[in-house]
């Protein structure tokens, strides 16, 4: 059977297209590499989610090669790859129907107008490939509003200096808040910060056939058992399938997009659940497998017209991959320094903190030593959170130091005391800093020429070079966040900013732009070189903004879906 639309991937970039087009009457096929799990298969199980990581491929079967920079004795720098089956550093974020959106925290900050024109606002930065977007915030704004409605975002608008323009108000009220949110508000006010509520892609009341949040206290990185979390599966694909126009084929691993001698796509080649080679055909093809795998698929899809990979005759595919720069930090609240009421407030489990700081989304501070001598630069966002996973928290409790400061194992009463102290005497408030990962020549995807996956296909090799400016911004923001923790009375306040990419926050690699020489996609996320190929995951982003990506990926995919609808009508009419 031939479809109108064939979509590779089923996450935040894929599901809005499936949803919109199926609703418009198109026949949609979704090919997803992973299995199709539902609410019934998600539990609060630390073993499943992180310790044994069961929602992702075994790294021996499917992996990446990560290239880091090293130095020879003579000072000369070189790049060296390491397979992730060796390092254990997984770049998979949810190989299931709905993809990583099943496991997101759902911090749904919009980008701000300035994110669409970093280069024209702040100027070029040496060593970075910053470009303005070919669209503006106003082009995307209606689609942010659509995501808030159709995926379900709970929040409230407050006036603050960096509030972006909005055409609508939130439909879903904010989620219940943890007591510490008011501590944050109070301290922020005291030191002149604006603590603002964080919109979350989690339903605060039942809607659209989904239940509201159950406040189990385990949300980030866990699959949602109530359906409240706005995964592409729960929020969009379920509706698309129920409408009768969308077919999802799980356990279908796409390995190549085939083209003919005219450069026209002839089909999507995949291994089905039984390992048989299959071909899917459609009028329009959409790729959304998360940034690294999308670039990998295009690079692997060589054809007569595309000797370097599909849509890659200008050598842009895989280039300018971005992650999220920034870092993490924390401070401890010691129970013996607090009143009984404060301790009880802290111990509350379930409600969300939902506070962020965006006072330095644009930095304008002479003290800031960045690329711009006036101290003007793009800054970022600070979010606050608790960690809940108990085994992770206990990790390290079996270690002590001997009289010579050497690490040594402890057990017996000492171990019990360590555990008791770790769990019952304080609580750690954490923050995460999100700032732009400047696109640069040392951060890109290519195909590895040695390592293959279990099907024998070359895996993606990812060079993870970063720009030093990212660290300067990240440290600046971290210090601001540390100041808030200190003002709240936290002890042991610290932060860590490094150039290591968070492997769950990726974009770029097929950036969009008006010039085919420097971009892969046009402003509709359609390949410059291939008329009926669209890319709707985070790959299109030339710069990433300073917030988590999922919201913008959703919004942009809805925008592109509207365009595809028009295209399909044209095709069918002709």
């Amino acid at each position: 059977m031939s479809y109108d639309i064939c979509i590779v991937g089923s996450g935040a970039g894929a599901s809005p297209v499936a949803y919109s087009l199926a609703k418009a009457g198109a026949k949609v096929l979704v090919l997803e590499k992973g299995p199709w799990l539902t609410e019934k298969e998600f539990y609060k199980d630390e073993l499943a989610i992180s310790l044994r990581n069961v929602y992702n491929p075994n790294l021996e079967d499917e992996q990446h090669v990560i290239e880091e920079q090293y130095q020879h004795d003579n000072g000369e720098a070189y790049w060296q790859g390491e397979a992730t089956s060796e390092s254990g550093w997984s770049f998979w974020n949810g190989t299931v129907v709905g993809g990583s959106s099943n496991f997101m925290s759902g911090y749904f900050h919009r980008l701000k107008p300035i994110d669409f024109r970093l280069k024209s606002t702040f100027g070029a930065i040496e060593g970075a490939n910053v470009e303005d977007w070919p669209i503006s915030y106003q082009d995307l704004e209606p689609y942010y509003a659509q995501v808030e409605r159709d995926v379900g975002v709970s929040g409230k608008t407050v006036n603050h200096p960096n509030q972006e323009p909005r055409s609508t108000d939130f439909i879903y009220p904010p989620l219940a808040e943890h007591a510490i949110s008011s501590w944050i508000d109070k301290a922020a006010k005291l030191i002149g910060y604006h603590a603002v509520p964080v919109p979350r892609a989690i339903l605060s009341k039942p809607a659209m056939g989904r239940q509201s949040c159950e406040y189990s206290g385990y949300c980030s990185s866990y699959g949602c058992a109530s359906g409240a979390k706005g995964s592409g599966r729960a929020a969009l694909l379920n509706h698309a399938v129920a409408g009768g126009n969308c077919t999802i084929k799980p356990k279908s691993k796409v390995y190549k997009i085939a083209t003919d001698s005219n450069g026209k796509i002839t089909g999507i080649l995949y291994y089905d659940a039984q390992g048989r080679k299959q071909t899917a055909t459609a009028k329009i093809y959409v790729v959304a497998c998360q940034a690294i795998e999308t670039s990998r698929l295009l690079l692997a899809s060589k054809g007569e017209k595309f000797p370097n990979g599909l849509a890659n005759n200008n050598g842009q595919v895989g280039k300018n991959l971005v992650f999220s720069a920034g870092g993490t930090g924390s401070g401890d609240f010691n129970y013996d320094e607090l009143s009984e009421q404060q301790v009880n407030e802290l111990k509350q489990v379930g409600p969300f903190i939902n506070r962020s700081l965006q006072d330095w989304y644009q930095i304008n501070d002479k003290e800031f030593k960045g690329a711009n001598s006036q101290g003007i630069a793009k800054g970022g966002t600070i979010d606050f959170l608790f960690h809940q996973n108990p085994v992770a928290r206990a990790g390290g409790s079996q270690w002590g130091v001997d009289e010579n400061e050497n690490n040594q194992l402890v057990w017996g009463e000492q171990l019990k005391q360590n555990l008791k102290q770790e769990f019952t005497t304080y609580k750690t408030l954490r923050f995460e800093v999100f700032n732009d990962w400047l696109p640069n020549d040392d951060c890109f995807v290519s195909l590895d020429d040695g390592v293959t996956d279990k099907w024998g296909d070359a895996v993606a090799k990812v060079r993870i070079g970063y720009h030093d400016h990212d660290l300067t911004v990240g440290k600046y923001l971290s210090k601001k966040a540390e100041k808030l923790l200190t003002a709240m009375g936290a002890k042991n306040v610290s932060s860590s900013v490094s150039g290591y990419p968070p492997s769950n926050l990726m974009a770029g690699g097929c950036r969009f732009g008006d010039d085919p020489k420097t971009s892969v996609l046009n402003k509709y996320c359609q390949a410059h070189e291939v008329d009926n190929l669209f890319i709707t995951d985070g790959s299109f982003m030339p710069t990433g903004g300073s917030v988590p990506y999922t919201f913008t990926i959703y919004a942009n995919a809805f925008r592109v879906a509207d365009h595809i609808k028009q295209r399909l009508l044209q095709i069918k009419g002709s």
Partner: protein
Amino acid sequence: MKLIQSFFDQNYQTPSWLTDKLTKKNFSRRMMIKGALKSAGGAAVVATLPFRAWSAESASLPEQLTSDPWLTLDSVLNHLLPSSNSGPGAKEIQATLYLFNVVHLQPTEQDEIDFIYKGVGWLNNYSQSQLQKSFVELEVEDKEKLLRGISQSTAGENWLNTLLGYIIEATLTPPVYGGNPNQIGWQWLEHSGGFPLPSEGTRFYEVPNQQSRVIADTTSHTAKNIEVVNIIARRQLPKGKGKKA
């Protein structure tokens, strides 16, 4: 690699399955130092405190637990996390049953299982050579001396660290995995476990997430040379360096 004969064998090198686990579980130095209290001379005194019953219903245990290597492992685990007034011990936590399930039900790497078993042999050999008794027959003070002794070797430290890691898992993972009966570990450490919790039939290795494995003859483009094997979810390491999205 030569066959390792004891904890003190100079040929022992920490195997990669363990180094991966250690680095990726983020047992960072900061964590180690934070949780640490200095202990004089390295020997924690195991006082036999008056025992308060931590009401754990004893589950019916598999038969294998009544013979070695499980008798010795049970004895070591009970020593590492003793039952006392300060909280439940390995016995109440059912750490031995948890470890038994790690070996027999969870998809654990064979190398790791072999290492756990070999350590039992090395420990008993050491015990026989030092005190002419097997480990389970020793008094508490002698057990302590022996375990402190082997912890000075790399292999011994790795072995004990492996067991301590599983004691922590037994204490803090959902009860369906065999430890933490009636959430005794969570109660002791005042932790809320979340909901819904997995139960029999929905443990992580029973979730229908298995992807078909295809071992294809990559030189051929026919569908003949393929073998489909359903693999069970296997141990993987958590994301090492990351923020939550």
